[in-house]
């Protein structure tokens, strides 16, 4: 039986109802890799984790991230994406315990690669970019991060990524987020109707 819908476009899809069940079972094939997207809301502010995207490659991840996390351009100055598997995640701590207090290694002094450091300052919030360090590997980067960035405020989790593994928007392309004027219809402020309700009530009275 062919599906008939209220929407003629759905009817035109000629969908056969009661299909063979096995035809919809999926293998792992089209499970895309995940990337983590980060947004810089304003010039000079740190990049902040926005959330993941699923994509077949880095370029697509970047495009998806732009759509998903910066389509309201007013809150965005730059974005970047990092393949999830390239992010080294520390242990999580809680109850005021600083993760850096669990780090006992000292920096090796062998500074041949650049790493970016992200901090989680409160469970349930987003990781924020803290800065970059030069180190020989991830463990060494963690020791360097402790030296550079440990403060009075406890850090509950650290993400470390090689700087080379980040794909970021170019400064000269910033005008892609300058869409506010033509996209007012995406904002709640564009739908004021109090006057209409007031006029209606006065008319009724």
């Amino acid at each position, binding site marked *: 039986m062919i599906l008939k819908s209220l929407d003629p476009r759905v009817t035109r*899809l000629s969908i056969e109802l009661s299909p063979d069940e096995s035809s919809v079972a999926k293998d792992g094939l089209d499970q895309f890799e995940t990337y983590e997207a980060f947004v810089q809301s304003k010039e000079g502010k740190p990049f902040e984790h926005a*959330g993941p995207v699923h994509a077949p490659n880095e370029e697509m991840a970047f495009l998806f991230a732009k759509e998903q996390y910066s389509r309201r351009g007013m809150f965005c100055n730059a974005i970047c994406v990092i393949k999830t598997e390239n992010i080294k995640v520390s242990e999580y701590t809680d109850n005021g315990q600083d993760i850096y207090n669990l780090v006992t290694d000292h920096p090796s002094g062998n500074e041949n690669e650049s790493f970016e450091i992200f901090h989680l300052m409160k469970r349930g919030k987003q990781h924020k970019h803290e800065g970059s360090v030069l180190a020989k590997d991830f463990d060494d980067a963690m020791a360097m991060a402790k030296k550079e960035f440990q403060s009075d405020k406890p850090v509950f989790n650290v993400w470390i990524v090689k700087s080379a593994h980040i794909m970021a928007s170019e400064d000269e392309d910033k005008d892609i987020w300058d869409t506010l004027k033509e996209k007012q219809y995406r904002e709640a402020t564009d*739908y004021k109707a109090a006057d209409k309700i007031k006029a209606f009530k006065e008319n009724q009275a």
Partner: protein
Amino acid sequence: MYGGGNVFETMKATALADEDPILLAAFEARIDRGEKIEPTDWMPQLYRKQLIRMIEQHAHSEIIGSLPEGTWITRAPGFKRKLALMAKVQDEVGHAQLLYSAAETLGKPREEMITDLINGKSKYSNIFNYPAFTWADSCFISWLVDAGAIVNQIANSKGSYGPYCRALERICAEESFHLKYGHHCVIHLATGTKTQREMMQAAVNRWWAPMMHFFGPSDKISVHSEILMKWKVKMASNDECRQQFLDMYVPKIWELGLTVPDENLKKNTVTGEWEFTEPDWEEFKRVINGDGPCNAERIAVRRTAEERGRWVREALLAPKAKYVAPLA
């Protein structure tokens, strides 16, 4: 939008007794301190299972919910309404992606969730098994179904699971546009011509019963739901959400000169609670189990999109094809 009342499955009480008491105590202490749970933390099986189920249902509701609204984009009255509805539907599908990702952190891959949806194994918000006959139906969904979902989502955003809270905060921020847009559409019709008013009233009449069903049946007070409340999985009962919705939106419906098709609906001035005719829970059960006006269509459309889009995903995953210039 779109997350409705949840129906939680019951689980044997013994499952909890199998958990390591020391880890369980640390987990509960963390929640009591108001700290969120993050993906790599130890958590009881029951917590993981219920969260996957809840977040997955929420994600499916966003995807399926965009179908009755999406169908009105081309027929929305005027360019501005088309743009706005397109933006709203894009938001909803984006919300589904955020939610699938949050559920994935608990160990169920996105493709498995989508497979369960198109095979009819997972539930989604029951209200989308009803058809949107007119533009006014689309307006009702944008304003009041979203409003109902916001009541749920704001409660859930204070829950204990970090990734779900982060997704919900992002979602709630976008909902303010949906709510204002939907209200604007309804005001336009309700204060318009006689025909427009009648069209809006007819939509309210059609959607009121599904809207009352939206928050789910009264929660049974059980040990099970007590645990979920204690673990901040469930943040408000279905009845609390329904009351809050009625309190916030019935006056706004009335002020537009619209009526609600329930002669028993009124606020009890003594208790402060809304009284209403008990929704037909037999119909709710019948529809949620597959026998609603649009169940088959919703799943079929989603399944077809999945099947007919497969070649795109495969092409993206196998970028080995080599470009050769045309020969002549």
